[in-house]
């Protein structure tokens, strides 16, 4: 039965994602919110690859999200006006940064690891903030826009058609989710679970734990960078807030809110977070306190997140 439930859940999620441009306006929303959810969901799922499946908490994923965003924006603005090229550069920059920083932090555990990820994240934030001639400093990288996709034989106008951009983001999201799910079901994925469950046992099974945490970290940051490239393209803009530590905190909240032991948890968490933000912020400026309150209630009463509730209900 659980296997059937899971498949039904997968089908439902893909159905809702693929049909969103049709039903979002009907419930009083708009397609752009759908794009937001998909982009943040990808970042939160990327974080959860490390948090939920390797058991390592990063509080600095915005750095790699932001590097992806800046890489894309600056490439399109200064170097080469092409969406795919911009994305490639963005992902390459964030992956390279994660690969270099990784060896310095993978020996740390728990709160020490989290603190160091924040510290490295803030380094990138201040670079973006201070380097006015390149990143525009506080004003961000503006006066550029994403380019329509041109594959020669066909042409997708993701620039002017919000639904086209939404489906573009969903396609990237789907490919990333599939790749992460594939990795998590492999022997490599089980090695990560072993580290999450019991590091001492993993070590005494002959698993070089630090090296595997490094690999998981780089994969996680690469997908966060990919989400960042979509974020820049979505807004046709990026500023230093994309790199800041509170952005990292949002990713953690999304993953924990939705359920970090469930594959789709971060997607659900991102959807709840952004819909609440969209709805409450139109009534009060203090929208964050309401999200905070909701978060505290979920963590207190349903430590496995929103999907944890659903799963417990459906258990025999």
């Amino acid at each position, binding site marked *: 039965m659980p296997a059937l439930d899971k498949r039904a859940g997968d089908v439902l999620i893909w159905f809702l994602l693929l049909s969103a441009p049709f039903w979002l306006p009907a419930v009083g929303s708009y397609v752009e919110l759908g794009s937001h959810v998909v982009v943040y969901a990808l970042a939160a799922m990327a974080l959860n690859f490390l948090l939920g499946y390797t058991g390592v908490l990063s509080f600095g994923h915005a750095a790699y999200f932001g590097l992806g965003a800046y890489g894309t924006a600056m490439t399109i603005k200064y170097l080469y006006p092409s969406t795919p090229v911009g994305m490639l550069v963005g992902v390459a920059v964030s992956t390279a940064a994660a690969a270099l920083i990784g060896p310095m932090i993978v020996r740390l555990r728990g709160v020490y690891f989290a603190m160091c990820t924040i510290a490295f994240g803030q380094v990138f934030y201040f670079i973006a903030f201070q380097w006015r001639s390149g990143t525009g400093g506080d004003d961000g990288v503006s006066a550029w826009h994403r380019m329509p996709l041109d594959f020669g034989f066909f042409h997708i106008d993701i620039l002017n058609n919000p639904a086209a951009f939404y489906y573009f983001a969903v396609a990237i999201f789907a490919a990333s989710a599939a790749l992460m799910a594939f990795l998590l079901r492999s022997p*490599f994925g089980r090695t990560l679970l*072993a580290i999450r469950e019991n590091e001492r046992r993993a070590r005494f099974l*002959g698993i070089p734990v630090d090296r595997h945490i490094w690999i998981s970290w780089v994969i996680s940051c690469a997908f966060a960078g990919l989400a960042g490239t979509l974020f820049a393209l979505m807004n046709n803009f990026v500023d230093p807030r994309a790199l800041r530590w509170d952005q990292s905190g949002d990713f953690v909240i999304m993953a924990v809110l939705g359920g970090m032991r469930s594959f789709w948890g971060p997607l659900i968490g991102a959807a709840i977070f952004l819909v609440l933000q969209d709805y409450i912020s139109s009534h009060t400026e203090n929208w964050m306190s309401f999200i905070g309150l909701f978060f505290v209630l979920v963590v207190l009463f349903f430590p496995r997140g929103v999907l944890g509730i659903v799963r417990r209900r459906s258990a025999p």
Partner: protein
Amino acid sequence: MTLLEVANISKRFGDLVAVDNVSMSVAAGELRAVIGPNGAGKTTFFNMISGFLSPSAGRIVFDGADITRLLPARRVWRGIARTFQITEVFPELTTRENLRIAVEAASGYRLRPWLSRQADGEVRARVGELLDLSGLSEAADRLVGELAHGDQRATEIMMALALKPRLLLLDEPTAGMGEQETYDITRLIRRLHREQNLTIILIEHDMRVVFHLADRITVLAEGAMLADGTPQEIARDEAVQTAYLGKAA
């Protein structure tokens, strides 16, 4: 043939000498018990053999190679597997998944993003063998954290066994167990020793288990070696009786 040679190892924690100049030689195929009162340094001694701690002095030679300074994972690759006094398993995974992770680690598949159909079949078959051998087949698809203590312990022993070790270190395998569980684990250890000709060193408090299983016994007291011999010799040894057995009786 000597499989493990421990020469004059010591471990100091500040002023405390936990293990003081202990030597031990274990032959291939032997089952050695290490006994001693609480605080005798048995677990510290074990931790130095498995690489959890590194000795302050002395040498450890395994199968002719000096392993004194090797990292734990590298000792595992050379064929030393261990269990812990407090069972160390993957509680939120099933018994089958626990064993599968161990088998994949042992097969060098831990980095593989996929397995060929043949390799996958071999892994499944090996997991099945281990389940059968331990009598855990019925618990195969339950979460290990939900199993009885004895079954968790058996899972941990089978995970160590999945590594195809040449030396198996068991730290108090029957600690905290009832009569039936103690009997089952003792029988399992004896089968591994007899049928697979596995070299085993175990720390144990239960003297029935020790005298039932061991080929030779090493006695530690206050960090130092008190005696070393066959179970008959140890039972007759007066120093051991006063220091340890006498107290227990």
